[in-house]
């Protein structure tokens, strides 16, 4: 394990979200995430995730119960194919970064996804977000695509993927769905 993970402050608690916690934490979650966004998401976006996949959301709380970090995810079949987990939002409060907190949060959400039978896990991050890319790469994610001008600010993103199970050949989706011309080497 890296230094960052070993240094994670011991006094932090990692808590799984539950709808009963909405009144206590939702506005803090929103605040923490929107601090890093140029354009805010409506409350509906948060509810969309938390109501349907509250168990994939984890919060890092300090001894005063204030929110230090959060991860929000979903898990559903992707285009009728594999069960795909998706990490939608991840943030750690500024003064607490680089201590492995985000790594812990991501691992917790990954563990639940795997327990709930995920086939693969995806996410996107801005191509300049070194900290996030390092974090995901160390956990075993690979970059699978570069998404040109993906964000509203015109920046590009990398799609990161982690396979949990070998792909079944039956899954044909996304760009690979186009029929292949049978272009083969001439038989000898």
């Amino acid at each position, binding site marked *: 394990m890296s230094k960052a993970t070993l240094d994670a402050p011991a006094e932090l608690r990692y808590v799984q979200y539950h709808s009963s916690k909405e009144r206590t934490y939702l506005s803090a979650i929103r605040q923490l995430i929107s601090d890093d966004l140029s354009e*805010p998401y409506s409350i509906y976006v948060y509810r969309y995730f938390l109501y349907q996949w509250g168990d994939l959301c984890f919060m890092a709380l300090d001894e005063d119960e204030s929110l230090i970090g959060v991860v929000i995810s979903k898990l559903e079949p992707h285009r009728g194919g594999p069960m795909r987990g998706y990490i939608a939002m991840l943030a750690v409060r500024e003064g607490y970064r680089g201590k492995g907190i985000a790594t812990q949060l991501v691992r917790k959400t990954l563990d639940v996804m795997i327990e709930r039978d995920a086939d693969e896990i995806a996410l*996107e991050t801005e191509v300049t977000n070194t900290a996030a890319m390092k974090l995901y*790469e160390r956990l075993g994610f690979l*970059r699978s695509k570069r998404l040109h001008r993906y964000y509203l600010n015109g920046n590009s993103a990398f799609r990161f993927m982690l396979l949990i199970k070998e792909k079944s050949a039956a899954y044909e989706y996304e760009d690979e769905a186009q029929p292949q011309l049978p272009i083969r*080497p001439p038989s*000898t």
Partner: protein
Amino acid sequence: MNFEVVKAIAQLRKPGDLMADFSKLSSAPDHHDVRQQHHSPLPPQSKSKRIVTQNVTSEFFAAASALNTGQLVKDEYFTLFEAVGALEIMDPKMDSGFLTSGESVEHDYDVLRELLPEEVLGIMDQMLCFEMTWHMGHPLSQSLFTSAYIDQLLWPDPKTLEQARFERDKTSGPGNKLLHLVLRAYCLGLVKTCDFVRRRIMSEHYYEEEDFVVSLYHRKLLDDFELSDISTKIEDAMAFVTKEIESMDRPFRDALLNRLQLRKTLLSAVQSDGFLDRQRARLWERCLELLPMLSQTNKLGVPIENSFGIKIQRKLASSVPPRPIVRISFDEALSRLSGICQNGRDAYRILDSQAGTRLMTFVLTYQSRIPQPSIYIRCLLQSLVFSEMRVLGTISLKQLLFDDFEELVLPADILVDPANGDIEAPQDPRFQISKRMDAFVTKAADAEGIDTELRKYTKEEPIRELSAPNEEIWSFPLSSWAYYYKLRQMEWIVQMGFELDIYQVDELAGMYWYLDWKPLHRPCVRAEVAIYRYLQHLASTRLQHIERIRTFSAHRLKRIANPTLKQKTSFRRSFSFLDFATLEASATQSFAEGLSCLFSFLAHLGLIPAPYHPLPYGTPALRYSLRVQPFLSVSLPEVPSYPEFASRVSLHTLERDAGDPSHQTASTKIETNDQAVAILDFADQALKAARKDWEAISKTKAETARCVGCEDWWRASVKNIVRACITANIMIATSKKAMSKAASQDAREILKVEVVKSNELYHAWWMVPRILPK
């Protein structure tokens, strides 16, 4: 921060997507107040008898109070896509109609005020910046359409060119000629240029939103008006400025004339009619010549910041929340414009490339230059390549393909004889050939089937090998052709991954070496996805395929008793292509092999970073699956299975067990270093061969290298690959020298490796690491 759908916001902000925040109403501590506020006023009554309005506030609150906090109301078709499009009313960042107290709805700027020459210059240059941000992919609503002047010209929609003026309701209002004559002419020229640019882009393949935003927000870009009328307006303005000797100093006059001239020339350069004319290159050149003066006189201008305003966005038919105006500096705008003009001029060189293989080299070389040509230019090139069913304006698709078949697989063959098409008698084999070739060309129909059918009309003689005289080997020319290009494309896809920074360093070698924290090396071969190894595999497959094609062409040539000059020329051309393709595939193969071994060496000794070990999630086999996924649905060439792949990779690791390090026997440093040096020797051999090949390529004549028309860029690119190759050889020498001195030392104490970023490499496809002695 990172929704798949973040972009969708733009399209989805429509009333149906609005979601009320139920919980705030039903459970926030002050919800009683909220209700109070909503209670009193009577609903406004519509004048129309058919519509009866009713105040539903209390029903709404009653319904909302039945929900728990955080409970989601949605049907199963309501996706994340739509959720992200939801917005909150009265949030200034989301609600485009939100006004702070005292704020007016309208943008406050008097477009009819008199302008000074320096102000006109300033506004023109600001507009140029916005025109360029639009070219860069930002919407008009965040660029040109934020100008009060442009807004006034284009809205309400002018029915005649005369209506497109600043004083929309009055016949003659305030303002001076600099405004009504000069700035207006400039704006008309600018808008019409945008019209041509947009139409060109929309007629071609491009990525909407990512590359270019076509949206006009229900405005028109003077598309109903003639270019000649607008040019006349610009000329009138120029005549006026020329005569204003009394009221304007020379530098101002010259600066204004320069800008008007640029507008006029640019407008002619982008116009649609006659774009295939080579003379267009001259117009682009002329624009380029005007730029230095534009640059020098920019300082004379006084920008009028408040003639642009974000509030103008509100008048545009758009469902997007307010978005910031995107600004770039004048210098940046100028360098963009200069790039467009240069590339516009250079694009016309494609008309010299003619044959298919040359055309391909041109397109690839031109489009991959850095900085990348702008979207408009890329679309212009596409139009030059193919429009109105003609390639380069003159060649039919069939001619192009036949020419390519001939060059690659069918020199002087009856299959590609254009005269076949004239035969009308079905019993004539050439009639049958023509029918089948057309099917292949137009429908890309089953190549193997057609190849098999064609044999009986061409009377093809199969090859029989001495060792197996009963086995017939057929040429399959069309399948061979298609397979060649398929392999080529697969190589490009792999190489493009380097350009896009998709691969991580530990993937490059094909394996990496886990080093424990303890001083003793505990090796564990972990075969990862080997990008360079896979590239090598593809290139060597292509090499074999070229050999096969050559064998059949040679076989056919031998059977022609007295070849005519025409036949000889055709064969010579084909063999020259095959020779060059062989050289190029072999160069690719060696370089890829060399780098794969070099990275293996570095990974072996822990000189490049390895991911966590054990990898907390995923396994090498799963990572491999993910990496080769784009190719899995390609049946041939088959993607090697993971075990097959892993065994090939470990060839260079001298058969080590892939597995958990705890199952490994600890080896000594000397042993590890010896093995690493052995890998280094493989790398050395391959990279020496690669250097020889790439140097040979760099000396190839333009005709042979099929780079006529783009020789200078092509040579520059090859030169960079040669440099990369030489650097790789130097890195090997450095490593060997250091290792020979320190047989038993920890390599990390004697060598240091820096992985170079893709934009700092000599060539983005060849990721040569920097290795330095410590």
